[in-house]
C-alpha cells in the first residue's frame, strides 16, 4: 500500500517532506537569522565605518580599519599570538583529557555515571569562579608557591602572565574536550583491540595503530571546540593575564569598552570569525580524511 502510494504520487510526498522540513527548520533559521546573521552583518558594516578620534563614530565608510589593522605590526603579532596560544592550549587540553576520556569510555555501570558527573560538574560553576580559584592556587603566596617554598625550592611566577592564562584555560576547557572525545569514540570497539593483541601487537602499537586512528573523529571535534572557545575566551585571559597577555578577545574588549573604537573592535571581531571559518574548514578536511 505504501509502496503503491510512493510510486503513484511521488510529487505530493516530496512536497510534504519539503513542507515538513521547512516547518522543522523554520524556528532555528529564524533564531539564527535574528540572533546571529543579522548582528554579524551589522558588525561587518561597522568595521567599514569611519572612526573619529576619542571614540567618535563617523558616518562615512572607509577601508582604513582593515588596511591599518592588517599592516600594523602590533595587530599582526596579536593575531599570530592568539592563534599560537590557542593552539597550545588546545593541544595541552587534548593531552590532559584524552586518557580521562579513554578511561571513561571503558568504565562500566555506576562507576561510569559517577565519573561522568565528576567530569561535567565543573561546567556547573561559572568560568569566572573557576578563574578566581586559579588565582588563589597560582598566586605568589598561593597553594603551589607556598608548597614549593616549603620544599625549599624557589617560587615561580605562575600568575598574571601567559603561563597563568594557559593553565587556567586548559582546565576550563577540559570538560568540553572530554565530552567531545567521548562523543567521537563510538567506533572504538574493544574486540578490535583484542584482535590486535591476539595477533601479537604490543600495547604501544595497539594504541598508535588501533586506538588513535579510531578515535580521530572525537579528537578532531574536541580540538575544534577547544580552539574556538580558547580564541574567543576573554574573562580568563583578562583575569589571569595581568594586562601582559594581549589576545584578540581582550583587545576587542579594550577597543569596544575602553577606547570606544567600535569600528576597530568590529574589524578584529570579523578577523576572529575568519579564523573560526578556517578552523572549521580544517576540521571538515580532517574528518573526511579519517572517515
Amino acid at each position, binding site marked *: 500500500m505504501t509502496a503503491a502510494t510512493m510510486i503513484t504520487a511521488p510529487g505530493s510526498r516530496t512536497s510534504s517532506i519539503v513542507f515538513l522540513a521547512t516547518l522543522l527548520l523554520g524556528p532555528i533559521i529564524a533564531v539564527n537569522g535574528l540572533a546571529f546573521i543579522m548582528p554579524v552583518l551589522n558588525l561587518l558594516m561597522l568595521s567599514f565605518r569611519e572612526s*573619529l*578620534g*576619542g*571614540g*567618535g*563614530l563617523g558616518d562615512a565608510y572607509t577601508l582604513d580599519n582593515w588596511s591599518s589593522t592588517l599592516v600594523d605590526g*602590533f595587530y599582526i603579532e596579536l593575531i599570530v599570538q592568539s592563534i599560537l596560544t590557542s593552539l597550545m592550549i588546545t593541544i595541552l587540553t587534548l593531552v590532559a583529557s584524552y586518557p580521562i576520556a579513554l578511561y571513561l569510555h571503558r568504565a562500566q555501570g555506576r562507576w561510569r555515571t559517577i565519573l561522568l558527573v565528576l567530569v561535567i560538574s565543573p561546567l556547573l560553576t561559572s568560568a569566572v569562579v573557576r578563574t578566581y580559584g586559579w588565582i588563589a592556587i597560582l*598566586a*605568589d603566596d598561593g597553594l603551589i608557591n607556598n608548597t614549593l617554598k616549603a620544599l625549599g625550592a624557589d617560587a615561580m*611566577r605562575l600568575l*598574571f602572565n601567559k603561563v597563568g592564562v594557559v593553565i587556567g584555560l586548559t582546565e576550563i576547557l577540559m570538560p568540553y574536550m572530554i565530552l567531545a572525545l567521548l562523543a567521537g569514540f563510538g567506533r572504538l570497539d574493544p574486540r578490535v583491540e583484542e584482535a590486535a593483541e591476539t595477533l601479537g601487537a604490543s600495547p604501544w602499537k595497539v594504541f598508535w595503530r588501533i586506538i588513535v586512528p579510531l578515535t580521530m573523529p572525537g579528537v578532531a571535534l574536541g580540538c575544534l571546540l577547544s580552539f574556538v572557545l580558547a580564541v574567543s575566551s576573554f574573562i580568563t585571559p*583578562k*583575569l589571569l*593575564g*595581568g*594586562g*601582559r597577555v*594581549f589576545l584578540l578577545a581582550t583587545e576587542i574588549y*579594550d577597543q*569596544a*569598552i*575602553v*577606547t*570606544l*573604537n567600535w569600528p576597530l573592535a568590529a574589524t578584529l571581531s570579523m578577523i576572529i570569525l575568519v579564523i573560526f571559518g578556517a578552523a572549521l574548514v580544517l576540521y571538515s578536511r580532517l574528518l573526511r580524511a579519517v572517515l
Partner: protein
Amino acid sequence: MKKSIFLSGILLAGMAAIPAYADQTVTFLGYSGLFQERYTKAVIEPFMAANPGIKVEYFPQQGSAAMLGALRAQKAAPQSDVALMDVSVAKTGTDEGLFDKIDESVTKNFADLYPNAKFEGVAGVGVTFDNLVLIYNTDAIKKAPDSWNALKDTSLKGKVAMLSAPDIVGIGTTIIMNHINGGTDFIKNIDAGINAMAEVAPNIQTWEPKPEVYPTVVNGQVSLGVGWNARSQVNADGSNGKMKVALPKEGTILQINTINLVKGGPSAEAARKFVDYALSAEAQAAFTASMYYAPTNAKAKVAAEVADRTVIGAMDKVIPVDWIGLSKVRDQITQDWRRKVIPLSR
C-alpha cells in the same frame, strides 16, 4: 469575539498607562554599584521628596562607554533623559548630536560652577570632581608615601597594582609622571612620562587588578596602588585601617563626570528640573559628604573633615589636563605603553 477581547486589552493597557503619564518619569543613566547606591540616597531621593510629581528611574550602567552605546542605540527614539558620564565620552556624545546644551537657560546654578566644570564643545557640565591618589596597605607600608615616585621604589618589586593604558588610570599616571619629570605639553610629547612609567613597570604585579584595585591593596595582595579618591576613601573606611589614601605633594589630575541632557528625551521638562537640582549647592554638598567626590558648585558647603578627604583643598596643585585634546593622542600613548612600558614589567 477574539477581536473584541484584543481591543478591550488595548483599552485596559491604555487606562493603566494614564496615571503613569500624569507623573513624569526621568530616566537617569549612571554608574552601577556603589555610585548608584550613594547617589540615589544623597541626590535622587531628596529630589523626589521635593518634587512629588517626578519619579527618577536610575538605569545603572557599567561605565561611560556602555552609556554611550545605549544612547547611540536609542538615537532615533531616546528612552533616557539624563546621562552622568566621563567628560571625554560626553564630548564624543556631543559631537554625535546626542545631547542638549546645559547653560544659564537650563539652570541658574550654572553661574556657580567652577570654571573647570565647563568645557568648550561639551553640551553637559561637570557634576563631580574625582582625582588620582596613591593607596597603600598599612601592614606593608608604615609611612604614608608623599610622592608619586613611591611607585618606582625598588623594594616594592611585584607589589604594585594599577590599570594600564588605555584606561584613564594608566594614561593619567603617565601625565602626572610627565609633569613631575619636566614634561610640558603632554599632547605634543609625553616621553618623560613614558620613561618614568618604564621605571615603575618592574614593580607591577598586575596591570589588571580585578575586580578593582582597592580590595587587592586591602587584603595585602599588593602593597601600593593607584586609585580614584572617592572610591579609595569609601574603601579605606571599610578596611579596618588596612588601607590608607595619600595625595602626593606633586599634585594630581582630575577625573570629571558631567551631567548631560539627552536630546529628545521623553521627559524633557522634568529632566531639566533634575539637572538643576543635581548642580545645586545642596545636592553637591550632600553627595560629597556621602562619597568624597569634590563638588563642582563653588557654593557647596562641605564640612572641613570631609573637604580634607577630597581634592577641594589641593585645587591649586591640580595638573591641568585637556581631555578633549588628549582623546586625539590616547591611541599613541597606548602604543607607547605597549612597546616601552608593559614589556618591562616582570
